[in-house]
């Protein structure tokens, strides 16, 4: 009973992090195969076992927890491969799902079609019933309509059903009655109620979240069943947990109740890992840049808390539950550089992906990519990458850059390559600026943490553009999310709808509602093996000034509700509003819109040391470079740059830029003006000399 395993299934690679009780850590990377998930996991286990000098069977016996992140839900949504779902809704409102918020994202581009609704109109069926905003029944439920709808669903082979009635959050009885009827009429078909899945006022986010749950359920159930059966077949007898979109883990049982939470499972574990490493550098404000082959994921942790957003879109579909705020743009190693119709150089969002890949992979790629620019500038090895396993044809890189960019623009190869490198960095810096300014943060107060294989080559340049002085590169950066999976806490969110002006609120009732949610939370966490001491509970209220469209989540404690709650909460809200929105309005009335309870099951925190299998380094030997490469940091000149083998560097060694550190799974570029130090816990910390 010694290990915890994090597995992150991505589009191209499946990453593994094996974490021992004593803090020893082993990583593995295996090509994904979505048809044979069990095979991939076994292959990964085999590779980890080899590193630990054990057999796979022996290793499996030593693992007491597997935490799994998967892109299956996100991919199903992107590729429009969700289930044949049906919806039952209040008669007269069957188009809410398709109407969305009535917005067309780009006002000038007339060639973009609207999103395809998750449930087609013919399977969105209205039933006669109506409840008003006070929860009173205006029109009783017509049960015959529900029976008719079930008949249509049976005839059409509907695999799951979302039940979405207006004002069900005020009075869920009609939704619950429909559930009973459907269970009798179409037994075995999963049914989701909007009042259970996403209880909030505002019908569109609630209906959309419920429809997403229904549309993902059959697929997710199959996936979880296969995974659990396969792992049990190979003799794994311990719990399996899943990363959910809020960044915490949950059990398969709870995930099956809200399949929507499987969206972004995987990337959502990134911030936990980033925070873990940033703590060693004394930083609580972190922006994570996870740059892979095709895209960049940006997320933020401020004041030690992972930022979540509610009511955000995942590939144009609204999710009304808290999700880790991950912003994705098309910028990666495979991003293609091209000239647009005005002759301006653009990089991305199109990508050469892994096939054909960058020109230097020699797999038929004919367009210059960011990786090709890195090779041409000398930042990447001109013979092989990824610890020697990926041969590189540097001439191919130069040739495509000359043909596609340098010649048409009449500039040199170096100028063109440097332009590609700089422009992709600017695009990434803009993405970071947007996500931080939306939250009112000053990005200069943050450190950058690298995830993904490509980030360490670009992080210092992005930091320069943003005015950020410190970059943290965990040695496990290329498998950051699987590491996050292995260490992240369990998280569950609970909601109660409640609305009224603060002076009219019955705070005893409010406190009681929190206590009820707390009881639910303790029961759920106890079932997952958490004793009370390992549980953390956060109470929050959704508040707004009367008339505001959005609301703010305010963290409160039991004490705030004890004496003069109305005044105490009002004061806290004014303060929070000023912080987030730059002003407060003390003359305005404040309205309570809902209650949230977030429960964390805290994982053991014995992880204060992290090891990656490294070569034995003699204590006396000086740091020496492997080679010298001529790199281009300013077009027109080439600078002598020392290249180091990352595995041969000792804790406490400081290396000054310009230099390059080649690790097994990544290349760290330390440009002029920066220095880097390998700290304990196998974390590299890169610092800007100017900004100190």
């Amino acid at each position, binding site marked *: 009973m010694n290990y915890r395993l994090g597995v992150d299934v991505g589009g191209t690679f499946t990453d593994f992090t094996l974490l021992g009780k004593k803090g020893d850590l082993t990583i593995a990377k295996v090509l994904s195969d979505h048809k044979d998930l069990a095979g991939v996991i076994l292959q990964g286990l085999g590779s980890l076992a080899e590193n630990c000098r054990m057999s796979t069977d022996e290793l499996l016996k030593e693992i007491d927890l597997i935490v799994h992140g998967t892109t299956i839900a996100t991919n199903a949504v992107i590729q429009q491969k969700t289930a044949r779902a049906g919806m039952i809704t209040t008669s007269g*409102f069957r188009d809410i799902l398709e109407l969305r918020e009535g*917005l067309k994202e780009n006002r000038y581009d007339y060639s973009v079609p609207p999103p395809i609704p998750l449930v*087609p*109109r013919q399977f969105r069926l209205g039933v006669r019933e109506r409840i008003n905003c006070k929860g009173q029944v205006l029109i009783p439920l017509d049960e015959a309509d529900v029976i008719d709808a079930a008949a249509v669903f049976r005839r059409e082979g509907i695999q799951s059903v979302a039940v979405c009635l207006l*004002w069900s959050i005020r009075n869920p009885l009609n939704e619950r009655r429909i559930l009973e009827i459907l269970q009798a009429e179409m037994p075995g078909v999963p049914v989701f109620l909007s009042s259970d899945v996403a209880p909030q006022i505002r019908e569109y986010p609630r209906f959309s979240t419920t429809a997403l749950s229904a549309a993902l359920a059959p697929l997710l159930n199959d996936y979880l069943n296969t995974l659990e059966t396969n792992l049990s077949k190979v003799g794994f007898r311990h719990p399996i947990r899943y990363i959910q979109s809020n960044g915490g883990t949950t059990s398969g049982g709870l995930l099956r109740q809200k399949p929507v939470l499987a969206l972004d499972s995987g990337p959502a574990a990134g911030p936990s890992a980033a925070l873990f490493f940033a703590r060693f550098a004394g930083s609580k404000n972190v922006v994570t840049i996870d740059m892979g082959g095709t895209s960049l994921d940006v997320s933020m942790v401020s004041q030690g808390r992972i930022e979540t957003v509610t009511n955000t879109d995942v590939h144009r579909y609204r999710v009304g539950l808290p999700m880790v705020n991950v912003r994705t743009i098309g910028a990666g190693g495979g991003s293609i550089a091209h000239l647009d119709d005005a002759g301006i150089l653009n990089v991305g969002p199109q990508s050469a992906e892994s096939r054909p890949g960058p020109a230097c992979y020699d797999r038929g790629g004919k367009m210059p990519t960011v990786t090709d620019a890195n090779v041409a500038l000398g930042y990447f090895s001109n013979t092989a990458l990824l610890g020697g396993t990926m041969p590189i044809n540097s001439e191919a890189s130069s040739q495509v850059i000359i043909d596609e960019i340098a010649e048409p623009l009449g500039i040199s190869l170096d100028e063109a390559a440097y332009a590609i490198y700089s422009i992709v960095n600017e695009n990434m810096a803009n993405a970071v600026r947007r996500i931080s300014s939306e939250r009112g943060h000053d990005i200069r107060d943050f450190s950058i943490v690298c995830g993904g294989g490509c980030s360490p080559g670009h992080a210092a340049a992005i930091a320069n553009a943003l005015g950020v002085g410190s970059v943290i590169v965990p040695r496990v950066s290329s498998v950051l999310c699987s590491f996050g999976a292995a260490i992240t806490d369990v998280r569950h969110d609970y909601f109660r709808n409640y609305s009224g002006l603060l002076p009219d609120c019955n705070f005893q009732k409010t406190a009681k509602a929190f206590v009820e949610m707390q009881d639910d939370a303790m029961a759920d966490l106890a079932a997952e093996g958490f004793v009370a001491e390992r549980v953390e509970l956060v109470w929050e209220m959704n508040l707004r000034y009367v008339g505001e469209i959005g609301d703010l989540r305010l963290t409160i404690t039991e004490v705030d509700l004890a004496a003069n709650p109305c005044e105490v909460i009002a004061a806290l809200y004014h303060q929070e509003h000023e912080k*987030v929105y730059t002003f407060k309005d003390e003359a305005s009335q404040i309205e309570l819109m809902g209650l949230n309870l977030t429960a964390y099951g805290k994982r053991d925190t014995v992880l204060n040391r992290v090891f990656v299998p490294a070569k034995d380094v003699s204590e006396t030997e000086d740091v020496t470079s492997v080679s010298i490469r001529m790199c281009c940091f300013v077009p027109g000149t080439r600078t002598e740059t020392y290249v180091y083998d990352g595995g041969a560097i000792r804790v406490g060694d400081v290396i000054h830029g310009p230099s390059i550190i080649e690790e097994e799974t990544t290349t760290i570029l330390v440009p002029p003006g920066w220095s880097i130090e390998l700290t304990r816990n196998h974390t590299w910390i890169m610092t800007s000399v100017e900004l100190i």
Partner: protein
Amino acid sequence: MLSDPHSKTDIITMATIAGALGSIVSEMSNVVLRTARSPVFKLAKDFSCSVCDWRERQMVQGDAELPVQVGSIPLVCKAVANAYKGQVYQGDAFLCNDPAFGGTHLNDTALLQPVFVEDELLFWTIIRAHWLDIGGVSPADLRQAQTDIFGEGLRIAPIKIIERGEKRLDVMNLLFDNFRFQEQQNSDLLSMMAACTIGSRRLGEIVSKYGKATFKDCIEELYDRNEFRARKSIADLPDGIFVGRSFMSARSGNGKFEILTKLTVSGERLNIALSGPAQLRDVRNSPFGATHAAAYHAAAISLGIKPPFNDGIFRTIEIDYGPLGTIVNARVPPAAVLGCTTQPFNEIIDSVRNAFCQIIPKERLTAGWGAAAATSVAGVNPKNDTFYAHFHPNAAAGGSGASWGNDGWSSVGSEGAGGAVQRESVELLEYEMPMLVHSLEYRTDSGGGGKWRGGLAMDCIWEPLEHEQTSRFHGTIEHIPALGVGGARSEMLAEKLGVRIAIDPDGKTRKADGDSRLHSTIGGRFEMRPPGGGGVGDPFERPIEKVLEDVQNGYVSIDGARLDYGVAINSKLFEVDLIATRKLRDK
């Protein structure tokens, strides 16, 4: 001679500045969304941000701004610069909404902040937003239709409200004492200022990084490159004079007003000459600023130029608004112009579009959107006996036009807003207002027929609870269907058109039929049916399986399939009768 502009600026600086301009506009918008208080700002996002340069030329139009607001911003900027020549200082701020100076309707008020670098005025950050109230006879113009601009509210010619960082309180008081919701509007103004400040700060950082000279060279070159794109696209069009037309219906009867476009293509230059009948004694008159925005919008889409747009595109196109005193070049005063952001805005776009559609490649064809059905409601709330007025987007969600290769977007409102106005949550509406919504649903057969179908309109039925309500409309939607192009046509016309109905408790209905308002009785309801969008291409070429799918989904009825698309479908089995279909389509 057409030649690729040669670069003075290095490629990285140029790409960086081009990228930053787009992101600056969206940062400015974010600030407003976060800090504004009035629903029309944040609920409907009825505002647009932009940046102009040292010669008042537009440096960038964002992707997500409203065409009607952003298109005429450079005209306002020029007017302000002219009015205060020699008296513009760092730390100043100006307001302007006057249609005589490039403004549109009075509520859309622009705030402009000049920014100096080393004593040189280098750029202006600008936001134009729909103010909740601008004075005038009554909020939301409810009591009676205005016949002149004086009843519509306060006209603000270019005026300095802040000088070198000091608020001119006398001026501010004079303005704000005329508005009904002073407090709310004050905080709206603060958020507009915050947007300009953020924009200035970010642009300032860029200038200090690259230097003034490089910055200016780069901006000039971005214009040249955009101009080059536009010229290339114009040069590909056949030379000649092409006439386009569109119609706006009269308030009553069968009368209609024709808007005429004379499009002249000669080599790399375009001239768009507009003309229309004498200005009306109702609110549907377009001052030159709105006409300018509409004509450029239609031209930019038709030329197939991808955003971001800047001054470079505008300088290849000349617009002639015709003599003063017509509905496309209203004389202000006295013309009332409240409707100009919706009607005749969309009709002007359609007239220009109609001319372009004769000469552009078919891949760039776009159809007209449903006429603007803008609706406001007002009454006395029975719960607290206070007067309320509310802009009601759910009652105005018509369909967009189709484009070559794509069906139209359903229920996105009118083309002047371009799909930027947000639908309201039924539950939030019922929670805050004394109203109960009975249904909100697409209208079958409302999308214009075409190989690519027009977007559907959304019907809305609601009941004012325990009080009488007045519903007020700017445009007419009852008589003229959305413009279809490329062989598009519809047989079932009635369903494509809009209608506004008051339903009394006894079931009797009253139609607005062009009238600009309706009153409800207690226990009665309103039903709004905005118009659908136009189609593109011959509807008989729409693939049969697409028509069947539309019927299965209720977007098109079985009758509609037969009449509009020539597809015969069995009403019981939902099966296509191929022989009957061939017969219908061969006719």
